[in-house]
């Protein structure tokens, strides 16, 4: 077992390191996690500065230059480093703008799920009784329908576009957050410090959000990081089925779907968006594993 740096130093002459610093020390130990972090930062950088970095407009069709191969294949040119798609749009630019969309979906789903999950989970744990039963049954119901089928159904009802993709994916993954918050809130509520807070007259709102919630955060943060991955993959799957962001939006999943006909003749058009998804999701997963080890030593083994 490596020494766990996230625990406060025992009786030393110096003050214990700040939580942030000790977190970073323990995160740094995990080489994979740091690598993941580097890639994630890179993808975020590309997404933010896509309009500066991209060599071309992602929607512009260069009619004379359709299906150009990437630079390392014969016939590739530096004007279109990763080649062009069937309509002559620059692949590199589309991939760069695509990172915006995927990250936006991932982060939006995470933020909305976190908020809803915390509210519902805390309500469930605090009120108990009928509220608890109703919330849990609804979550059970959502979980009993295969995730993609439910997402497709929701999108079919409210219409396929970017916002609705976010709504659908949020609903599908909400139960995980709710159950997680509820479970850890229940554990915390039975502890002495909560009783102490109650006795000293802390109101229910303050008790839930200021006293209890921070102690439920570590597993929630880990779930959030992994939730971003699930959201990106699910949204890309919807895009692939034609139910996500609509063309000509450069969304990675729909780019893949568009390129299905070119699979034998121009495989890179199909390969590149998939590689982009894989690398992004893998990097976030690596980071999530590191986060888990650093934030919550109890979870280290699971």
């Amino acid at each position, binding site marked *: 077992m490596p020494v766990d740096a996230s625990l406060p130093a025992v009786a030393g002459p110096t003050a214990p390191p700040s939580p942030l610093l000790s977190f970073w020390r323990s995160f740094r130990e995990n080489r994979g996690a740091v690598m993941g972090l580097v890639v994630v930062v890179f993808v975020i950088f590309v997404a933010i500065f896509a309009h500066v970095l991209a060599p071309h407009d992602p929607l512009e069709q260069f009619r004379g230059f359709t299906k150009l191969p990437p630079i390392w294949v014969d016939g590739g040119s530096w004007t279109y480093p990763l080649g062009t798609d069937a309509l002559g749009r620059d692949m590199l630019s589309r991939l760069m703008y695509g990172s915006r969309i995927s990250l936006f979906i991932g982060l939006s789903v995470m933020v909305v799920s976190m908020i809803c999950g915390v509210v519902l989970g805390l309500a469930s744990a605090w009120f108990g009784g009928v509220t608890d039963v109703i919330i849990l049954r609804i979550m059970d119901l959502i979980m009993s329908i295969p995730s993609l089928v439910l997402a497709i*159904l929701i999108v079919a009802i409210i219409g396929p576009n970017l916002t609705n993709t976010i709504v659908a994916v949020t609903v599908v993954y909400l139960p995980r957050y709710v159950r997680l918050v509820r479970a850890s809130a229940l554990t915390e509520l039975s502890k002495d410090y909560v009783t102490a807070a109650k006795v000293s007259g802390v109101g229910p709102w303050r008790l839930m959000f200021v006293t209890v919630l921070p102690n439920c955060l570590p597993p929630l943060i880990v779930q959030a990081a992994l939730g971003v991955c699930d959201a990106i993959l699910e949204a890309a799957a919807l895009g692939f089925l034609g139910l996500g962001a609509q063309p000509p939006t450069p969304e990675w999943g729909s780019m893949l779907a568009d390129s299905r006909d070119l699979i034998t003749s121009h495989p890179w058009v199909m390969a590149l968006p998939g590689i982009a998804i894989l690398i992004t999701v893998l990097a976030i997963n690596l980071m999530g594993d590191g986060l888990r080890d650093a934030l919550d030593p109890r979870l280290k083994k699971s």
Partner: protein
Amino acid sequence: MFRFLLRRLALTVPTFLALMFVTFMMIRLVPGDPIEVRRGERGISPERLAELRHEMGLDQPILKQFADYAWGLLHGDFGVSIITKNPVLQEFLTLFPATVELSICALLFAILIGVPAGVIAASRRGGVYDQSLMGLALTGYSMPIFWWGLILILVMSNTLGLTPVSGRVDLINYYYPSVTGFMLIDSLLSGEKGAFLDAVRHLILPTIVLGTVPLAVIARMTRSSMLEVLEEDYVRTARAKGLAPYRVIGIHALRNALIPVVTVIGLSVGSLLAGAVLTETIFSWPGVGKWLIESIGRRDYPALQGGIMLISSIVIVVNLLVDLTYGLINPRIRHAR
């Protein structure tokens, strides 16, 4: 144990009821209705339209429609597909074996590779094997499986010509009656030369694609569960008394380490079915996943309702069984609830 069973069963009843209601309501909310779709195609008169609506009960108050629907469900009547005019249950049962066959193969693939990989990684903790196996597992876990499917088709089918691109059976060369609905068994029963091999060749790619994510999950789970068990006293005792390492790891430790893994496998049925939707679409596999997607496109209410109802019921029942067996294996759980 009996009480535990009753309690668990009672908990599923409201879920079922809610499921019925939600599938019914949600599908009513899908914009456009099947009659409208049909009118566009054929240009039928308004009178005939009203007649059709009446035939399908779409002119009834919505609560009446729900009551009829629920009553039918309780009698095993899942409605009639608007497009094909076949009973939904019958359509589902025709297609379901294909999905089950694919899912079982994928799960076997995942278990047969995932468990040994996890055990090897755990027994060489921190070593090269551990790191590369877990790196691969995380890659598999992060895989967009629709892309993975296309890549495999590109490499295995188009470039190397090893496997067919899509479908389930080569009807031009082989024809055999459907006895069980499972191609692997039917082709063997037919005794036709090469038929079984053909069925296997069609299964390989979809199996890999659908099995990749469960494989990664199982490998990671086995590893962490093994690591936990290997720290236990009884493992140290087994080692101290001089048992061969493979006996300690493979028999003493693995047995206990597999308990949480079995749960994970059982609970992955839902995600397996979700993955089947994508896999079946990519490989034109004639299963319920592809059928559901097509039903959404055709606005086939009864097929959708019935299909989602049936699939979700299966997930609920399987999860229930997993819970119960878990309670059997591990008595601590039983009393904790």
